[in-house]
């Protein structure tokens, strides 16, 4: 499978480990990524007060993708939302299309745009991916965190249930890791308020950690660089602000399945995460003993009754 690739600004900066692990996992899954030429920022959520500008900036990337003749894959939930929305507007809103075609001097026909998770679980298929796994990740007790734009609004993101998505849960389970039920899976991390209302952003993110820790998770798995920025990048700041210890590794889903594929930690850039993942990786395969003990205890309790 050959796909056009739009990394977006963060994957060439703060989310470089998402870029590296995306490339590594795609290569191992037989996906050939062709990065689109001279792409630009999609406007993120900072252009929300100017919808046409936001979609216009995004549309330029769609023109670039169109030239490749390939479908477009995007690992960032915000970019994927923006470029998909721009594609729809370019097809349905004639006045808008006229403006952007005039600005760029080209005709727009449309591009098929998908989030990387959608490609992995639906186009390649969770089962086919798990066929590439060479080691079980038993010992990892993850929660799947989808955040906002990966699954909603459902008029833009159509591949999973917007209220209770399961695609990432199922992918995590296919590695042999546990994936615990997580009621906060689509709650907002407050990423967009990080600069302007940091105290609120930190309260929102801390709520996610509170539940993840309470249910016994030892890592959070994400599919968005903005979520990762809050959960991983800002974790020590949140610990400071709330005078608490969180110590929770946050992996991109590509890093997790890369581990199951037996890819190297260097290749997956696990050393680039701000919260060290070494203890988590050390726990892989070590859980079995504890489980046997726990099961023994439970049986003992039953017998006593």
């Amino acid at each position, binding site marked *: 499978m050959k796909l056009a690739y739009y990394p977006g*600004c963060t994957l*060439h*900066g*703060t*989310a*470089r480990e998402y870029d590296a692990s995306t490339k590594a996992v795609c290569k191992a899954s037989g996906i050939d990524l062709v990065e689109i030429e*001279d*792409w*630009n*920022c999609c*406007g*993120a*959520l*900072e*252009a*929300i*007060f*100017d*919808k*046409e*500008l936001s979609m*216009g*900036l995004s*549309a*330029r990337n769609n023109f670039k993708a169109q030239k490749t003749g390939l479908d477009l894959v995007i690992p960032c939930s915000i970019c994927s939302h923006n470029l998909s929305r721009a594609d729809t507007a370019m097809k349905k809103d004639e006045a808008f299309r006229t*403006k*952007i075609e*005039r*600005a*760029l001097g080209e005709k727009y026909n449309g591009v098929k745009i998908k989030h990387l998770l959608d490609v992995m679980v639906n186009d390649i298929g969770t089962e086919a991916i798990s066929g590439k796994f060479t080691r079980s990740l038993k010992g990892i007790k993850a929660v799947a965190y989808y955040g*906002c*734009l990966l699954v*909603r*609004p*459902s008029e833009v993101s159509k591949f999973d249930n*917007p*209220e209770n998505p399961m695609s990432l849960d199922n992918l995590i389970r296919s590695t042999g890791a546990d994936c615990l039920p997580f009621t906060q899976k*689509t*709650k*907002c991390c*407050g*990423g*967009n*308020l990080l*600069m*302007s*209302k940091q105290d*609120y*952003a930190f*309260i*929102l993110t801390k709520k996610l950690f509170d539940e993840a820790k309470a249910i016994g998770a030892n890592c959070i798995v994400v599919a968005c660089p903005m979520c990762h920025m809050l959960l991983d*990048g800002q974790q020590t*700041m949140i610990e400071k602000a709330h005078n608490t210890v969180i110590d929770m590794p946050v992996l991109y889903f590509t890093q997790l399945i890369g581990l199951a594929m037996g890819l190297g930690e260097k290749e997956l850039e696990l*050393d*680039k995460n*701000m919260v060290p993942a070494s203890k988590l990786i050390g726990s892989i395969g070590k859980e079995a003993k504890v489980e046997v003990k726990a099961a023994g205890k439970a049986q003992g309790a039953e017998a006593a009754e």
Partner: protein
Amino acid sequence: MIKSSELDPNFKYEIAKEPGGENIMKCFNCTGCTVGCPVTEIDKSYNPRKILRKALLGMRKEVLSDDSMWYCASCYICFERCPQDVKITEVIGAIRAIAQREAKAGKIKIGNNKPLFDNLFIDSVKSNGKWYEAGVSGTFMLKTKGIGGAIGYAPMGLELFKKGKLSILPHKIKGTNEIKRIFEEVEKK
């Protein structure tokens, strides 16, 4: 108290004309947006239902100068759940656009820092084609927290830099003239 003599019945049409604000008049004030809002959960002063109701009544000045309007985290929960397809997240965006124009014209004052960050971000995209993280964040910190506040962020910036995650200089794309033309076209309205 609401004084009907001070209401601006055209405010709702003004919002509906703004891209993203088109569906505001479909709102029947069911409160679905507000009960699911993660920000309302931690601060009741942010109440999307009230913002919409006030806007529909024509409480123009009150809505445009309401600081809580800038608390929306653009999480799209209300957008997803709204039974009337009001597209609330984008209606808030439309109201923000009007508020920024009013502030530029000196008619209202915006106390919140959100538009400052958004505009620094967009300006950096306008000149480079990509967002200039170090420059935008640094300028924002300096403007809002002063030198002391900005220095507080230095350790994190340094760590990001050491990990190869932060570039000191902006990345410029080749097609900045195309970006400029997109800005010009959408500014025409």
